[in-house]
Every structure is written in C-alpha cells, then in structure tokens.
C-alpha cells in the first residue's frame, strides 16, 4: 500500500447507515480497528483520539473518526452504539464477516480471534493498533502507531488539513 493508494470499504455504521470511504465529502476519516470487549488497547486509543481532537479545537470538525470492529460476532450496530454512547464524535462500523474481512485486507490490518479464558465469552481479538487518516476520496494520507501521543496525533491531523 503506497501513500497514494485508495482504500475501499463498505460497512454499516452504528445507526444502520451504509458507510464507504467516500461517505464524508470535505472531511477526512480517521480510521482504526478494535472491538468493544477490548480492555486496554481500544479504550486507550479512543481516549487518545478524543484528546487529540480536543487539541484541534474547531479544526476537529474536519475529521470523522471511524471505529471498525474486528469482532462481528458480538459487535452489532446496537452494541457499538451503546459502547460509543459517550463518544459522540466516533462512528462505529460493523458488517458481515466477509465485508469486515475485506475492509481489514484493504487496510492491511491484522486481527485474529484467540481463545482466552480470562475474557468474556472465552476469547479476545488481538488486532492492529494503527490509526489511518484518509481523505474524502479514500486515499490514505497518514497513519500512526499506537505509541504516538495525543499531541503527536494532533500535529499529524493539523498537518493534514493545512
């Protein structure tokens, strides 16, 4: 995947609407993967994204955060809506296992269900913790690892809109 590649996906948001890479004209998408039973990585990523968007002030409106589930068995639209209830800026995306697999492939994202007796339902889904920024045509313009701080993420996002 090179920096000028277009990443296509077709999923359903947590209000039941169809969402693709071109659904947000004039805005950038900030895409990351996770699952609502995730105990550490996802809450941390969501907190960091919230903090970064707060740092952006009015510029935050230029971004639409998209949280794509890697756990279609449990994360239906209702479950994602409830999970993201206190994070109104973020749209949860789900879909059929096939559509979600296609989205993961498009982003080169890793996710694999792994038995874990300490987790609810006896499994977890370790996954890629990268965050991708797409323009409104679906072209990837940036990506960051989960080591980046909220300040660093905010800097990247500022750079994207300037």
């Amino acid at each position, binding site marked *: *995947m*090179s920096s000028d590649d277009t990443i296509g996906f077709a999923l359903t948001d947590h209000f039941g609407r169809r969402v693709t890479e071109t659904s947000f004209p004039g805005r950038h998408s900030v895409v990351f993967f996770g699952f609502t039973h995730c105990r550490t990585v996802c809450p941390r990523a969501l907190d960091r994204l919230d903090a970064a968007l707060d740092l952006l002030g009015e510029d935050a409106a230029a971004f639409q955060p998209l949280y794509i589930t890697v756990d279609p068995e449990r994360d239906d639209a209702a479950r994602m809506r409830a999970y993201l209830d206190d994070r109104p800026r973020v749209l949860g995306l789900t879909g059929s296992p096939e559509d979600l697999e296609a989205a993961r492939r498009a982003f*080169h*994202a*890793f*996710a*694999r269900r792994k038995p874990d007796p300490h987790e609810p339902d006896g499994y977890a889904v370790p*996954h890629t913790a990268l965050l991708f920024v797409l323009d409104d045509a679906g072209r990837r313009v940036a990506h960051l690892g989960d*080591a980046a701080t909220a300040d660093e993420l905010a800097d990247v996002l500022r750079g994207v809109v300037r």
Partner: protein
Amino acid sequence: MTLTVAEFADRVEGYRREGVDALQLGHIRHIDNLSRRLPNDWSGMDSRSNGQDDFASLRYQLAYAAFALAVAHRYRLPAAPGVFKGTFDRLIQKMLLPEVWMYWRDTSSGNAVFNAHLPMESEWDPVRRDNIMYSAYVQVMSLLYAYLFEDDRYARPGALSFEHWSFSWGGEGHRFEYDQDSLNELIYWKMIESGFIGVACEPNCVFQICNQIPLLGFRLHDLLTGGRRAEEVERGYRKAWDDFGRVDAQGRYNLLVLEDSKQLLTNDASEVWGDAWAGTVLNMLNRDLVRERYPEQIRALLIGGPDDTLTIRPLSPTSLFGHSLFEDHGDFGWAAAWAAEVGDSATRDRLLRYADARLAPTWSDGGLFYPRHDASTDADGFHRLVDPLTGNALLAFARLDIPDGLWGLYHLPIEPELRRSPALVEVDPDVAVTRAFIGEEGELSATVSATGRGSGRARIGRLPRNGWVLERGGRIVARSSESTPDVLDPAVGVDGPELIVQPRTAEEGYVLHVQ
C-alpha cells in the same frame, strides 16, 4: 549489561585505528573476488542441496558477505568506502539474478512438510507473498548500500527488478519491479498484516530468525528518510514474540511459528545453527536476552578440539520420511559469528584457530576462504564439513565483526562529520587498504599498498576546500591552499577535485591533514 550508544561509539573508535590485518583483508578480497565472477558463475558457492533449498544457499552467502563488508567498513575501515562500494553493489546485482530467487516459483507452491495441507498456487514474484528469507535480504542490502555509500541508485523506480525470460520455455516471461522504498513499504505492511509476528519464509513458516532482518531494513530506511517505522515494528514484533515465547523450555530459541495453527516449533537439540544464527541477529534488537542465554547455549553446543581449539560435534546426515537429507546450515560458521557478535573473543578465536588448522584455509587471488567439504569428519573424527556459507561468508563475518557490530548497525548512526571528511572514495582491486580512519584533527590516515603489478590507484575524495597537506611516511608529497595544488611526488596526481595516489608494494602510510 546494557550497552549505550555512546559506549559503543567509544568502542568503535579503537577498532577504527587498528584497521584490518592480513586475514581480514583476505576475507574482504575473497568476497570481492566472488562479486566479480561472471553472471551465473557460482563456482565455490554451490551448496549440497537442490534448488537453493538449504540455509547455505546463494541468497544467504551473498547477504552475509554483504554484512561482513558492512561491519568491516563501519568499524575497521570507515574512511575507505571505495574499498567496499563496488563489491557491495555487485553482490546486490547477483542477488537479483534468477538463479538466486527462482526457487520461489516451486517453494511457493507448497506441498512441504509444514504446508502440504494448505491450498496454494505457485508464485513467480519472489517478494510479494511470504519468502522473507529472500525479500528481507534484498531490502537490507539495498538500504545498507544507500546508507553506507550515500548512493540512491536502488531508490530509482524498478532498480530492484526480478526478471526472467527464457527462449526455451515460459512464454512472455516475468518482470516484477521494485525499488528500495517500495520493497520496504511492502514488507512493512506485510509485518502489520501479520500482527507483527512476522512474514513467512516457506509458506506457513514464520521464522524468528529471518524476521529480525527486515527490522534492520526499517531502521536504515528511517535513517535515510527520517521515519519512525523501526521503532513501531520493533515494539510490535517484540511483544508478539514475547507472547509466543522466544525460548523453549530448554532455554533455546524457538525456531518458527506455523502461521495457520500458531504452533511453535522448537530447536533441534543436536544442531548448532538455530541458537547461533538466532543469537547473532537477535543481538541487534534484544541484546540483553542474547547475553543472558548465550553462556548456557554455547556451552551445550561446542566441544573442545585439538590444541585448545573449539569446534562443533560432527554433523550427522539427516533422514526424513525415508529420504536422506543433504542440507547445510552453516553450523560452524554461525557459531563463530555468534561468538564474535556477543563479544566472546576467546571462543571466536578458538573456533577460528580450529578453522585455520583443520578446515583447509585457502588463498586465491589474494582472497581467503575455506572451500566446501562435504565429509562430516576428518581422519581424527573431528568436524570437517565446510558449507559454502561458512567458508565464503560467515567466517569472514566472524573475523571482521566487532563485539555488538550488528547492534551498532542498528543503533549507531554514521557520524555526519565522517561523511564530510576526506576518504578513499575509489580503490582499484589491486590496491590493499589496511587502515583508513579520520583522526581527532579531522585528518585522513590511510595505509595502502599495491598487491599486483603495482599499477593500481586509490582516489582520495571529499578534499577540504580550505586547503590540505598530504604526507607519505611523514614527508609532504602534495599540498593545496586556495591556489592550485602543488604535487611533489610522481606517485601522486590531481584529478579535478580529487587526489590520486599510486601505492608501491610496501605498505605506505598516508596522512591527509585538513587546514
């Protein structure tokens, strides 16, 4: 004991002043000799197995010969890029020849012990899917070349192309175009797709060893471009393997994980290469673990040889499913390389003394190597086998590396002032350079001699604009201020912005003082 970059830099300084001895020079020359062979002349490099199947195959010889050159240049002859650049480039060109990578057309089709149950199709492109046992070495060799020599030839589109066409078969042929950036990008995303556990070598087989190599590639790419991918991937890779387990219950490095079942395969207790190869390259990124495991691991793998030497147990032919398996793994060479990298000089030296006494060291065209020998034992029952990876590349690496040399390639960037300082930028093949470093006053100190008919030349470039004085044996032979250079010796010439010296047979010490 943790090593800091500053401590390592101090260590390097000492080696730079020492230069290379006759044996080290011989290894460098042998690698150069191999690099100058005509295309598809692999004499002295063929291993016992068919179709580049084993761990001594051409790709490993070329790659670890390049690593030997890299550590020799960085730590022993830093002001002599001209000794190494052409050789390094020719090794990369050989790496791109179909004979080196065409095994992938067959290996990718599966039907091997660990992937026969998986449906898969034959693939021509040798880097697109799996095969990190080749792609990572092309990635690292091209990026090392760019970083060491500040030459972007492999950054040009299509500069790393894998091309095959035959008059006799195969239709229109195949051509797959990459460059150092696109190949690095491809491997980066494959690492991410894998959850950082790594990319498979043979389909379904993710080796811990081979996935160390692309991390060095990411680091070099970061150094060239200002990126931070190495840090990101290293963190993910470390966590992924920590979760699976780097070492088995016996304290030996796990070899590989099967991609589909996530089953870990441990090391065969009778073979040296697993721990030795893993320990050598793992030192780059997980030095503390390597230091912790090394004493116990190597104690179990080496035995005493004659005259206070060390060696390995004779290697027995392997039988699998009723077939005799003739495969080389570079066991002896990896043992020596491992000891060198972890700084166990006593063990390295005892292994090298064994090699010099019993593995038929051979000089040819000024080069030193240990010829392939297939018999397991000598008349005394000691280890005698020499595979071409050991004989051409690994013993060279062991002799040229310094303690933590690979660690340093990863962690210690080249000093900007070294890149700006005078250097031997071109060296004819019949000129020997045994010292080339930059002194405290910024002066170039070099020791050179002619090895052939005495007509070879060395070119000193990156001369300071404010003037310089060139001395040979303490006597001024050329100088320049702001006016035209003044040449006082017939063995010295000026060619544009560079100086040319024609060494004599005896070693001569040149010093170029910066004004």
